[in-house]
C-alpha cells in the first residue's frame, strides 16, 4: 500500500509487449463470459439464440466506443469524467443540424467530430499546460457542457435523415453495422498502441511521466492528443446514438462518466496508467453487456444487477491487486 508503484521506470517496453498479449486477467474474463453464457442459457431459453446475441451486439456499441476512449486516457495516467456532459452536447449539436440530405449530413458529421476533438483538446490543454488534476478538469468541463447542452435544448430535439437511421439499424448477415464498426475501431486502436510513436509515448507517460520527459517524450503534446482522441471518439458515439434514437437527447450521456470506467478496470488496465490495453476492455464490455442481458431475460430486477456489478468491480480489482503484489 505504501509503495504502490512497484514497476521500475525502465520496464515500459515490457509493458508494451504485455499490452497486446493475453494476460491471466483476460482468461479470467473469458471464463466468466462462458459462465454467464451457461447461466443465461439455463435461466432463459431466449438467451442463447442468434437474435439475442445480435441484439447484445447492438446494445454495446455506444458503451464500447466510450470505454475505448477511457482506456486511452487511463493508459496515459489520466481520467476523463467529461462524457456525461460531452455526449449530451454533441448529441443535441449533431441533431440540431436537422440533416435531411447527404450534403448537410456530411457537414454535421464534420462539425460534430471537430467540436468533440476541440472540447477534448481543451481538457487536455488545461491538464497538460496548467497542470490541474484531470479529475477536476473533466469534472468541471462536464458540468459546463451539461449546462450548455441543456441551454441548447432542454428537451430531446432535432432530427437526422431517415437513411442515416437506416444505416444505424442496418445489419450485415445479422451482425449490426455498429458492432462491425466497433470491432474495426478496436483493432485499429490496438495497432496504434502497438506500432505508433503515439502509442509508445502513451504507455511511457502513464508509467512514469518524469522518466518519459527525460527520455525526450513530448509529454504535454501527447496528453493534449489523447484527450482530443477521447473527444473524437465521444463524437462517434454521439453520432451513433442520434442515429439510433432519431433525436438528440441532452441527457444522453448521463451515467457514462462512471460507467465508462468499469469495463476499463475490469479489463485489467491499471487506474494509475501505463499498464493494460484495449483487449481487456473489449472482453470486459462483452462480459458486462452479456451479464446485463442475461439478468434482464431472467427477470432479475436492475436493483440486484447493481449489487452484482459492484461486487464484480471489487472482485476484479482484488484479483489485480493480488497480481501486482507478486
Amino acid at each position, binding site marked *: *500500500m505504501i509503495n504502490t508503484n512497484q514497476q521500475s521506470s525502465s520496464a515500459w517496453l515490457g509493458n508494451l509487449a504485455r499490452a497486446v498479449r493475453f494476460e491471466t486477467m483476460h482468461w479470467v474474463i473469458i471464463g466468466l463470459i462462458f459462465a454467464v453464457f451457461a447461466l443465461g442459457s439455463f435461466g432463459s431459453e431466449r438467451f442463447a439464440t442468434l437474435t439475442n446475441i445480435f441484439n447484445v451486439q447492438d446494445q454495446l456499441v455506444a458503451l464500447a466506443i466510450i470505454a475505448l476512449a477511457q482506456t486511452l486516457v487511463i493508459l496515459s495516467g489520466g481520467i476523463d469524467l467529461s462524457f456525461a456532459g460531452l455526449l449530451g452536447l454533441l448529441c443535441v449539436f449533431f441533431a440540431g443540424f436537422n440533416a435531411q440530405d447527404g450534403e448537410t449530413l456530411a457537414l454535421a458529421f464534420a462539425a460534430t467530430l471537430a467540436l468533440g476533438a476541440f472540447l477534448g483538446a481543451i481538457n487536455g490543454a488545461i491538464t497538460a499546460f496548467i497542470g490541474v488534476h484531470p479529475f*477536476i478538469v473533466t*469534472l468541471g468541463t462536464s458540468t459546463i457542457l451539461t*449546462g450548455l447542452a441543456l441551454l441548447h435544448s432542454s428537451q430531446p430535439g432535432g432530427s437526422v435523415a431517415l437513411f442515416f437511421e437506416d444505416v444505424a439499424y442496418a445489419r450485415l448477415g445479422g451482425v449490426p453495422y455498429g458492432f462491425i464498426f466497433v470491432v474495426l475501431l478496436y483493432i485499429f486502436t490496438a495497432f496504434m498502441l502497438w506500432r505508433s510513436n503515439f502509442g509508445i509515448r502513451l504507455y511511457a507517460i502513464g508509467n512514469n511521466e518524469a522518466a518519459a520527459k527525460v527520455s525526450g517524450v513530448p509529454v504535454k503534446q501527447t496528453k493534449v492528443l489523447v484527450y482530443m482522441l477521447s473527444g473524437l471518439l465521444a463524437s462517434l458515439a454521439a453520432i451513433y446514438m442520434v442515429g439510433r434514437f432519431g433525436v438528440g437527447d441532452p441527457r444522453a450521456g448521463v451515467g457514462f462518466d*462512471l460507467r465508462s470506467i468499469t469495463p476499463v478496470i475490469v479489463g485489467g488496465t491499471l487506474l494509475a496508467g501505463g499498464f493494460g490495453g484495449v483487449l481487456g476492455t473489449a472482453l470486459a464490455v462483452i462480459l458486462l453487456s452479456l451479464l446485463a442481458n442475461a439478468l434482464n431475460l431472467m427477470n432479475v*430486477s436492475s*436493483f440486484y444487477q447493481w*449489487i452484482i456489478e459492484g461486487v464484480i468491480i471489487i472482485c476484479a480489482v482484488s484479483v489485480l*491487486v493480488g497480481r501486482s503484489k507478486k
Partner: protein
Amino acid sequence: MKALLNNSLLPMMRTQTVAGSQRRELILLSLFLVLIWGVTAMLSPRFLSIDNLTDILVQAAPLGFVVLGQMLVIVVRGLDLSVASIMATAAVLSIGANDSTISIVLLALAVGAIVGGVNGYLVAYRGVTPFLATLATMIVLQGIRFAYTKGAPGGSLPETFRWMATGSIGGIPVSLIVLAVVAVGIYWLLMRTKFGYQLRLFGDNPQSAYMTGAPVRKIQVIVFVLSGVLAALAGLFLVGYVGIVDNWTGQGYELDSIAAAVIGGAALRGGKGSVAGVLLATLILVSLFNIVVILGLSVEFQLVIKGLLIVLAAAVYLSKSRD
C-alpha cells in the same frame, strides 16, 4: 536515522508555509463570496434579506457535513464517491425500519460507519484505489437500497427531523448549530491532536508517516468511517429539509463535495485541507444556486458557472502552490 529525521521534520516545516498560503486562500474565497453576494444584492434587493440568507445557510448544511468528511478523505490521498449513496441508503433503511427518532439516528450512523469501514478496509488493507473501492460500494448500496424498498421507500418521517433541518433555537437554525459543533470537532481533530498530525503527515508523505510508526492503515480506515458517518448525518438532515424520503436523496453530492473540497483548498495529491476553506466553498456553491433562482436565470446557467468555478479555482491554487 538522519534521513528519517529529515523526512519527518519536512512536513512540519511545510505546514508553516502552508498556513500562510491557506490564509491567502481564505481571504480570496471570502472576497469572492462577498463579490457574488454584492453583485446579486445590487441586481435584486430581495437577496440580502435575513430570511433569504438564513435559507442559504440552512440549505448549505447537509453539503457542509459531506464536504468535511470528503476533505478528510482527500487529505489522506483518497476520494469518496460513495457519500451520496450512503446519504440515501442510511436515510431510507433507518426510516423504513422504525419510527423512533433515536433509533433512526443510531441506525443511520451505523450504516454510514459500516460502509465507511468497508471502504477503508478495501483501500488500506486490500490496496484497492479509493476511486474504485468507493465506486463499487456506491453501486452496491444503490442496489441494496432499491432491493430493500422495491423502488418506493416507505416509513414515515418523524416531525423531529423536520425540526432538526428547518427549526431554530433562539433564532439560530438547529442544522447550523450541529454543523458548527461538527466543524469545530473536525478542526480540533485535524489540527490539535496527534491523530490529526499523523493524518496530515500520511497525506503529505506516506513513506515517512510509515517510518515514524504512525498506524497508517488504521488512520485510513478511521477517515473513511468518519466520512461515512458524516454522509449518513447529512442524509438525515437533507431528508428532514426536503420532507420526503427518496431513493435518490443526495444525488450529485459526491461530485459537489469533491468540487467544494478542492475549491476550498484541499489538494487531490493529499496532505492539504482546511475546515474553514471547504465550508466557505460550500457556501459559495450553494449561494450560486440561490442566486441563479433569485435572478430568474435558467437553472442551466448554474451548471456552467459552477463548472467554470471548479476549473478556475483549481488552476488558481495550482499556480500559487508553485511559488
